[in-house]
C-alpha cells in the first residue's frame, strides 16, 4: 500500500550472559515508566488456595486439585526461573467479592462475576498490584516496589464444560489452568502462536521457549540452568521516527533443542518501546532470524493488556510492513 512506510530495523546483536531485562510479556503497572508486575517472594509466602467444590460442568477421571497442582508444577519447573509458590490450605470461599487478601483463590463455583453468564469466557485471572513501594501489601508488611503482586484469583466459569482428562468432552482444564497461572505469575498475553500465553492457544499444557523467556525474566534463577543471551536493537521508520509496539521476535534457524524435549521450541518475542528499542532476552544459544511485524492480528494491541496505556499511548504503531533479518 502506498500509505505504508518503509521500515528500517537497526539491529545491534549482543549475545551476552543473561542480565535483568525487560521482556514485553509481563503485565505492567503505572504510566510513563511502567513497573513490571511480579511477586516479591521475599516479602511474604505466596500460595494458591483451592476451593475444591465443583459443579456438574467438571468431568473426567482426575480431580481438579490434581489438574491445578500439575499446572502450577509446569511453571515451577521452568528452567532459569525461581518461583516460590506453594499449595496453601483449602478454602471454602465461593464468591469473588468475598475473597480476602490472604487468599489466592482458585474457584470453580464463583457465580457472582458478570463474565460467568458468558459461556465463551472460560476463565479469568484477577491480579492486584501496588502502585508504589510502601503500600500495605495486605500480608502484614509493605510493598517493596511498584507493580508488586499481592493477590491473584483464578475464576473458572461455572457455565463452561471442562474436562480434567486430555481429549475429554469440553474444554481441557489443564490447558486453561496453565494459561491462567501464567497471568497469576504476572505474564500478559503473548503474540507468539506456540506460547501457552497466546490468547487463543489450543490444548497446550507444556511451556514454550517464549513462556520460559518471559517467566525467567520475571523471576531469574541465581544459577541459571542454561546460558542465555539477548538480542537488542531499534525499530524505526525510514524517516527515523521510532516504531512503538512492533512485535519483534527471534526464531531459531536450526533443529536443535537446547532446552530439551519438554519445552516446546517457539519464537521468542517482545515489543518495541516508545523509542523503538527492544531487547529479546532469555535466548538459548542458537542461530536466529529476527522479524519485526505490526501487531495487527491475530494478536492486536487490545490483547496486550495495558501496554500502550502504560506508555501513555492509545495504541501501537501498525502502519508498516513485516521485515525479516
Amino acid at each position, binding site marked *: *500500500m502506498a*500509505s505504508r512506510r518503509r521500515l528500517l530495523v537497526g539491529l545491534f546483536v549482543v549475545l551476552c550472559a543473561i542480565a535483568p531485562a525487560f521482556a514485553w510479556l509481563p*503485565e505492567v503497572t503505572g504510566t510513563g515508566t511502567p513497573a513490571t*508486575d511480579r511477586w516479591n517472594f521475599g516479602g511474604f509466602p505466596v500460595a494458591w488456595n483451592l476451593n475444591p467444590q465443583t459443579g456438574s460442568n467438571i468431568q473426567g477421571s482426575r480431580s481438579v486439585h490434581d489438574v491445578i497442582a500439575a499446572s502450577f508444577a509446569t511453571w515451577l519447573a521452568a528452567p532459569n526461573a525461581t518461583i516460590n509458590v506453594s499449595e496453601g490450605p483449602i478454602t471454602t470461599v465461593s464468591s*469473588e*467479592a*468475598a*475473597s*480476602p487478601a490472604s487468599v489466592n483463590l482458585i474457584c470453580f463455583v464463583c457465580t*457472582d*462475576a*458478570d*463474565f460467568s*453468564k*458468558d459461556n*465463551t*469466557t*472460560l*476463565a*479469568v*485471572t*484477577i*491480579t*492486584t*498490584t*501496588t*502502585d*508504589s513501594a510502601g*503500600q500495605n501489601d495486605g500480608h502484614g508488611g509493605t510493598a517493596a516496589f511498584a507493580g508488586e503482586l499481592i493477590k491473584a484469583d483464578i475464576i473458572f466459569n461455572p457455565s463452561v464444560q471442562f474436562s480434567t482428562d486430555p481429549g475429554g468432552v469440553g*474444554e481441557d482444564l489443564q*490447558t*486453561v489452568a496453565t*494459561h*491462567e497461572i501464567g*497471568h497469576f505469575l504476572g505474564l*500478559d*498475553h503473548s*503474540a507468539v*502462536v*506456540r506460547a501457552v500465553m*497466546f*490468547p*487463543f*492457544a*489450543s*490444548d497446550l499444557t507444556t511451556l514454550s521457549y517464549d513462556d520460559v523467556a518471559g517467566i525467567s525474566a520475571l523471576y531469574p534463577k541465581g544459577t541459571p540452568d542454561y546460558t542465555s543471551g539477548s538480542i537488542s536493537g531499534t525499530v524505526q521508520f525510514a524517516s527515523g521516527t521510532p516504531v512503538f509496539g512492533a512485535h519483534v521476535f527471534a526464531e531459531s534457524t536450526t533443529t536443535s533443542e537446547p532446552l530439551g524435549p519438554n519445552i516446546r521450541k517457539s519464537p521468542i518475542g517482545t515489543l518495541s518501546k516508545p523509542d523503538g528499542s527492544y531487547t529479546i532476552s532469555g535466548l538459548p544459544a542458537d542461530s536466529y532470524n529476527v*522479524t519485526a*511485524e*505490526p501487531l*495487527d*492480528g*491475530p494478536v*492486536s494491541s*487490545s*490483547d496486550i*493488556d*495495558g501496554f500502550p496505556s502504560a506508555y501513555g499511548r492509545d*495504541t501501537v504503531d501498525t*502502519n508498516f510492513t*513485516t521485515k525479516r533479518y
Partner: protein
Amino acid sequence: MKRLLALTILLLVGLASATTVKPMSIEDLTTAASTVIEGKATESWSAWNPQHTLIYTFTRVRISKTLKGNNDGTILLKQLGGSAGGYTQKVAGVHPLMTGDQAVLFLRPSEARDGTMVIVGLMQGNFHIEREAKSGSVVVNNGVNDVHQSTATGVTEYRGAKLTLKQLEARVRRAMNG
C-alpha cells in the same frame, strides 16, 4: 504478519479449546446483547466495591446511535479492573474505557442489578472506533479477530481483518432481522 496469521489459522481448527475466551461472531454478540449502542465515553472513574475486594471502572457513555434496544441518552458501563487508592487490578484482555474513547458496545444489564451495564463476552463486545489516518475510513476493532461464523463444534471461517463501522452496523442489523 502473514506467516504468523497462517500459523494461527492452522491452530483455529482446535479453537473450541481456546484458552480464556472463545471468539464470538458479531452475530453471536448481537444475539447475546440486550443493547447495542455507539457512543463516546464522557466520564470514567474507578472504585473499590463495598467489601474492598474488587476494583471496578465505571464509564458514562453518551449514546450517539442505538442499534439494538431502547436506550438513549447515556448508559453507565461497569468493567472489572482499574486503579483506586494506590492499587491496580487487572483482568488480562479487559481494557476499561477512558474518557474520550468512542466505541460500539454490546451490552446487557449487570447481574448486580445496580443500573449499570456490562460488556458481553468479557471484552469482545467492546469495539473501539477509530478513523484510519491514511484511508480516512472509520474502522472498529475489539482486539479479537472477527469470526465470521462459529458453531458448537468450532469456528468455521476466520477472517483476521478490521471492519468498517458501516460493515459492523450492517451485520448487527442483519443479525437482528435474521
